[in-house]
């Protein structure tokens, strides 16, 4: 399966990884190569096979009790912020 430039651009946009035109072309070629290699899976008949869910064989979701056991750690939450204003994280202005 070969990958076209428009799709590659769309993927880069979805992933929010800004790529310039040269990089887009390189990525297109590399991903195309990997996708070609992955085509080996076409050989596998998966008719009636369920997809694997959860890697552990003997685990089920264990819910926790409803209690406030976390939070109230504003200093930790903000400790690594690259830019902040008082108790807030900041981003470039978003127009809604």
């Amino acid at each position: 399966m070969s990958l076209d430039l428009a799709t590659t651009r769309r993927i880069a946009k979805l992933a929010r990884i800004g790529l310039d035109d040269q990089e887009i072309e390189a990525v297109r070629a590399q991903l195309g190569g990997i996708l070609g290699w992955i085509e080996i899976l076409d050989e596998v008949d998966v008719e009636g096979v369920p997809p694997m869910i959860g890697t552990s064989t003997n685990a089920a979701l264990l819910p926790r009790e409803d209690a406030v056991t976390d939070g109230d750690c504003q200093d930790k939450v903000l400790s690594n912020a690259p830019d902040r204003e008082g108790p807030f994280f900041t981003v470039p202005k978003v127009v809604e």
Partner: protein
Amino acid sequence: MLTDLTIAQAAEGLRKKEFSAVELTKAHTDAVEALNGRVNAYITVTPDKALEAAKKADSTLSAGEAPALTGIPLGIKDLFCTNGVRTTAASKIIGNFVPPYESTVTAKLLENGAIFLGKTNLDEFAMGSGNLTSAFGSVENPWHRKDDASVLVPGGSSGGSAAAVAAHMAMGATGTDTGGSIRQPAAYCGIVGLKPTYGRCSRWGTIAFASSLDQAGPMTRTVEDAAIMLTAMAGHDPKDSTCADVAVPDYRAACGRSLKGLRVGIPQEYDSPLMATEKGNDILAAWKKGAKILEEAGCEIIDVFLPHTRYALATYYIIAPAECSSNLARYDGVRFGKRAEGATSLDDLYEKTRHNGFGEEVRRRILMGTYVLSAGYYDAYYLKAQKVRTLIQRDFTQAFQKVDVLLTPTAPTAAFARDEKPEDPVQMYLNDIFTVPASMAGQPAMSVPVALDDKGLPLGLQLIGKHFDEETIIAVGSALEKAAGFTARPDLRAGVSA
């Protein structure tokens, strides 16, 4: 030399007061200082913290009742978040990140008395098989080919941990394994690397690459040391929903256990075109040697078939990127990490930050994962891969009805040179061909060094066990290790060279 001891020997020496934890730690911080400039096994070193902890360990030891790892200096893969110590995942994007929390696995090791020397180097976000994608420079494998000064890769992604342990810059180290990232570097560096059953160790506080595959495990110079470390690292954690509530045995007790009547499977599909070459012949020979050792130890050697093995790698390169594309979405320059300058809009901030912050391989995998999950492709790629994964797991389930453990090579080649790195990413991915199937199925697996190839480089064999049966692979591994008598050490190591 104190740096030549195994963990088991050092623990005994500490208790017999042959030396102190401070002396043992100092020997290691000195070794790190002497060697790290060249090996680059550590991204961050914390000698002061280590010596401080060593003092405490000495008083615990004097008081008696010290837990198993008290005073044992370890390296910690820089993917485990460590409270107050920079944790980078070898990426620029969180190159300045200081977690205000401690991962469950490292917290357990600290509770067990271990001393942390620093954070070991890795492929960026654990994505790689050669330790060539770290934003903090690559790691040099302490081993070298006979009469050849080429710098070899230590394997990846836990290459910093593997090199540190091999070069005696740590007594043991933590690794994480997603598709072979503990076992393959262990094989390349001539040490033991154990990937436990998925769900055996908590993933809480370990930076995620591919959540359904990531597992933490020990990297050591002996199987016994791996058993000691795993006993401390494993166990249920209510903070990780995928972590199993299964009791943790004393794994060390499995070392030296009799192998009489144990059935060892030889998967017929575990060969590779690479092994047909001259380079690979030594690996085939080592594999045969391993089987012979086990047969002599009383095991029954049985051919088994894992017919979907040939699809495991392609499946892996759909599932792991898919999960990583989602797991790495949080690195956006808003709450932590490095934010790109001069962004004019929110999307611009995301795109610049993520373009500048991630290296090429990480970007490639994120894009690959985004693609296979995107509308119109999900069924053809991701869903299909998860179905193939079911088949891979069934292969193992069926094989384990006939045998107790599987014996395979760990990697198709010995360590390769940095400048032999293939341009084509697919060629690079082939390094994981033997390790990926067990990862896909969640089986525990361990690499044990058994021989040197004709260039003098270490070769490892892989043991794959049933879910939550690490004990059997430890028992078999310790027998294999003993009979193989692998005592070779790299030329680049503490006390020998700098």
